């Protein structure tokens, strides 16, 4: 119950944001994502073969590798979007294509590209993104907006937001949807110094609460994690 209070908020972004945590995240059930013998080809190139990895409660797995080494492709395989050539991804020992709903209920993905409806406002996008995953009321969204100090941006359409604001919107959505496993592709892209700290903060809190994270990042990711590993994709 007190676990998340131990973490000191590094920035003002954090101040009001705990309520949502208490609502959805205070106890994240233990879970495991494991991949066995994955193999993937693009064109005539084999990106990886015989790839095994496991991530469970409280772990941060950072996938590293040069540009084009296949990090994004690996993450997409792990989310279940991209079927691998061979091998299996399992969520709590169940192959993800058999337990799709259960898996997607607990997994959130932030891709390179921020997924927003260009024509909807920031608030509407947030409502939509959270509502896709669980029933919400607009009060919840208000508190998230307040926490991010975004009250005056709330009615700006997404296409008019700046690159960093769009990124933060993606991350805020992920955070508010109460997932156990976060899969993040370059989360720090376009974030300014303050927002970067905020992002690292929410990752830390998530891990402390028993969540797990798989991330790629070419920038250093300053996160204190209970258990942190790197995984290099060799080219």
């Amino acid at each position: 119950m007190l676990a998340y209070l131990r973490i000191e908020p590094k920035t003002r972004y954090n101040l009001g944001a705990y309520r949502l945590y208490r609502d959805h995240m205070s106890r994240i059930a233990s879970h495991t994502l494991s991949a066995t013998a994955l193999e993937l080809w693009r064109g005539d190139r084999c990106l990886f073969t015989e790839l095994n990895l496991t991530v469970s409660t409280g772990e941060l797995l950072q996938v590293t590798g040069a540009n084009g080494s296949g990090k994004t492709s690996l993450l997409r395989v792990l989310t279940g979007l991209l079927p691998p050539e061979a091998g299996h991804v399992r969520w709590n020992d169940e192959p993800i294509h058999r337990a799709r709903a259960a898996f997607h209920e607990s997994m959130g993905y932030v891709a390179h590209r921020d997924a927003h409806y260009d024509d909807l406002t920031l608030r509407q996008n947030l409502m939509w993104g959270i509502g896709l995953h669980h029933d919400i009321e607009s009060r919840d969204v208000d508190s998230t907006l307040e926490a991010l100090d975004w009250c005056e941006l709330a009615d700006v359409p997404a296409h008019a937001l700046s690159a960093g604001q769009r990124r933060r919107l993606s991350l805020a959505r992920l955070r508010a949807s109460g997932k156990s496993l976060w899969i993040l592709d370059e989360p720090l892209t376009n974030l300014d110094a303050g927002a970067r700290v905020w992002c690292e903060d929410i990752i830390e809190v998530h891990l402390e609460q028993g969540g797990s994270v798989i991330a790629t990042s070419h920038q250093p990711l300053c996160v204190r994690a209970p258990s942190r590993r790197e995984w290099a994709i060799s080219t």
Partner: protein
Amino acid sequence: MKLWPTMVRQAGVEWRISLRRFGEVMNPLVFFLATVSLFPLGLSPEPDRMAGYATGVLWVATLLAFLFAQARQFRAEAYNGVLEQLALSPHPLALLVVAKLVVQWVILTLPLLILAPVAAYALNFPVQGLSTLLAALTLATPTMLALGSVGAALTVHAHQGGALLTVLVMPMLVPVLVFGARATDLASAGSAPGGALLWLAMLAVLSVSLGPFVIAAALRQSLA
């Protein structure tokens, strides 16, 4: 995590987007009107000659308006990553697709049903056939919508080149057109259109019940 509220919410989102893109949404209707009104323009508008092709023009115009509206309907979502997020929600993708289709149907068909009598009048279409025309349109449009969306889902990726939509969808839409036109023709000649309307209803039931699953599967495949 109930299905019904999710669907309602998604329908709300689609509705709001359609209102935002009002111009885009109205386009097919204008397309319909244009097709209908261009005919008498392109030809000499003699009433006798016109009555001969009124049925065909009305049906073809409807079909083309639907194709026009749907040609790239999942493009924007695929492009900006929204589709990916929809596919990653715990709910069945087919459900979210249904929400979208229902909104589209309302936005496209209702105005069409209002415009159709006007267009029919302008084309000298006999009044006695009007009610059948409207009934047939109501029954035919869900099929057009569902099949058009299947085509759009199969060709969703801009970089996958072919918006081969027309080629893919046209062959399957021909029966709808044939039955619709036959029902209308029979009714305007004063006889009962029974059989043809039944066929249309059957196709509608079939495509509405199976369509969303096919569309969802196609969308998932094209994300891979």
